[in-house]
């Protein structure tokens, strides 16, 4: 993958304009954060990019219109991690993760091998044979992330992957996403935590009311002005926004590469 871009995306649901002329661009190796108050259309944008929600405008993958790709080709290149995806039957963790290998039509032994390797890399190796319905909320969230990564997607669209997690697992998940980018892939991630967003993402895009407020590098975006415009919050006198939302800790035990 070289780049993925969306031009003038519009989504209208029940006569309500949910997304208005959104532009977005992400290059190989980049992590692109979508930041917004609740209800600004982040999840809808991600669904539109994943092809789950129809949208007007253009979405291009390496210059090729996404709608011209076959469903299978699209599935091999783009993965979508829903905010709270259902798992309707009590499958084992290994089986759930293996579902993402389906589009590759490979031998079952190869799928098993890749699944095992991925689960180990995600720190979920011990849970491989556990049933999904017996996991804690945090474990479930990590399993679903592993599921999305299992297809080795060139572009991963992750909707609040850190929402249900404690502090150390939030860092672990962000490090996994970062590692995915380092392999030449791209990630578009919806985040609420500005510290994580500022620390891990290469570029951030603020949305408000379905439109892009500002897009740029974290120092360009995490400023007193844009925080006030987006969230109606005001920093205390004399405080710097980037400093206030900086991430000053890293995972000690695992020593994950924590910076960008």
């Amino acid at each position, binding site marked *: 993958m070289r780049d993925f871009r969306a031009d003038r995306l519009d989504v209208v649901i029940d006569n309500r304009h949910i997304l208005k002329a959104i532009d977005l661009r992400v290059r190989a190796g980049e992590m692109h954060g979508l930041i917004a108050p609740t209800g600004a259309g982040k999840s809808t944008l991600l669904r539109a990019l994943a092809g789950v929600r129809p949208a007007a405008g253009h979405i291009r993958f390496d210059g090729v219109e996404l709608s011209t790709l076959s469903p*299978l080709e699209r599935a*091999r290149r783009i993965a979508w991690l*829903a905010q709270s995806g*259902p798992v309707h039957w009590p499958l084992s963790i290994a089986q759930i993760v293996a579902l993402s290998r*389906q589009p590759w039509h490979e031998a079952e032994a190869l799928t098993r091998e890749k699944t095992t390797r991925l689960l180990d890399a995600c720190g979920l190796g011990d849970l491989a044979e556990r049933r999904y319905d017996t996991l804690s909320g945090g474990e479930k969230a990590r399993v679903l992330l592993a599921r999305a990564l299992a297809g080795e997607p060139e572009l991963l669209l992750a909707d609040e992957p850190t929402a249900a997690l404690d502090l150390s697992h939030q860092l672990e998940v962000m490090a996994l996403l970062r590692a995915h980018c380092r392999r030449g892939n791209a990630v578009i991630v919806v985040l609420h935590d500005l510290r994580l967003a500022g620390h891990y993402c290469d570029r951030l895009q603020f949305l408000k009311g379905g439109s892009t407020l500002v897009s740029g590098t974290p120092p360009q975006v995490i400023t007193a002005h844009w925080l006030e415009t987006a969230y109606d919050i005001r920093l205390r006198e004399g405080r710097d926004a980037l400093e206030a939302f900086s991430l000053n800790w890293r995972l000690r035990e695992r020593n994950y590469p924590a910076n960008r």
Partner: protein
Amino acid sequence: MSRPARLLALLLGVLFVLSLFVGSNPIPVFQALLDRLRDAPSAIGIVLAEVRLPRTLIAIVAGAALGVCGAALQGFLHNPLASPGLIGTSSGAAFGAVVALYFGFAGGYGIPLAGMLGALLATLLVYLIAGRDTGMLTLILAGVAINALLTALISLLLSLAPSPYAVQEIVVWMLRSISNHGFDDFWLMLPGALLGGLLLFRCRRALDALTLGEDTATTLGIDLRRTRALLFAGVALAMGSVVSITGAIGFVGLITPHLLRPLAAHRPGRLLALSALGGAGLLLAADIGVRLLQRFGGVEIKVGIVTALLGAPFFLWLILHHRRSPA
């Protein structure tokens, strides 16, 4: 072939042989077989080849179709209570068949084709009413409503029948079961059941992916529209064919997937083949039970009564179980 599938196939093989040996009257089966092979005309040869064998084969095909349709519907609707009997598919097929009898186009493939159309319409109707991701209860209630409507429409057609002969034809048809059929009925039933089953097997991967919900399945390359079309066509073909020959047989499509789900590691796609084998075995075993009852108890009951006697308590248990643990 997985180990559970091999075991079920073996069990089905044993039941098949047993089924040839069990009838309302004892016959020397080996002698009958020899007579048939030598082309020697004998009554016992005819009983074996034209009574027991078609009955056995019809039970196998009908049971397999019920099992695979139940598994496919449960997987697709991710609802453990979905089955052809409960969501109106069987009633739709019965209604289609009665319409064919009423309007007098019941010859040849008339009844199976009308049954397929009825099954398709009823299933689609319930699906449209209940929606895709609604809870279990909505689907079951929609099924109850459609079942009631179709039963009423069948009664209405009976009341409005143009002649006593039509009434008689409809009533006789409604009393049918898997007994008293020859090979002609088996051949009428087989193509639709087979084709329907094949269409459902083509949904295997999609059913597995649908475990993660329709949206995620879409991002895994599943064409939902195609899957829906294949699934509804498959269920309609299979159930239309089966119900038009055997009448509605309840609960096989509900129980079979439940019993076998752990053996399929809960994977809806893998469950299809196991449910086909299991459904065939279950219905054949129930029919053998019916014949034993006839032979030793002197009572003749329909196999649907046996499956209902076993299935209804199971269904109640399922409802209570899911009420306690809605997950």
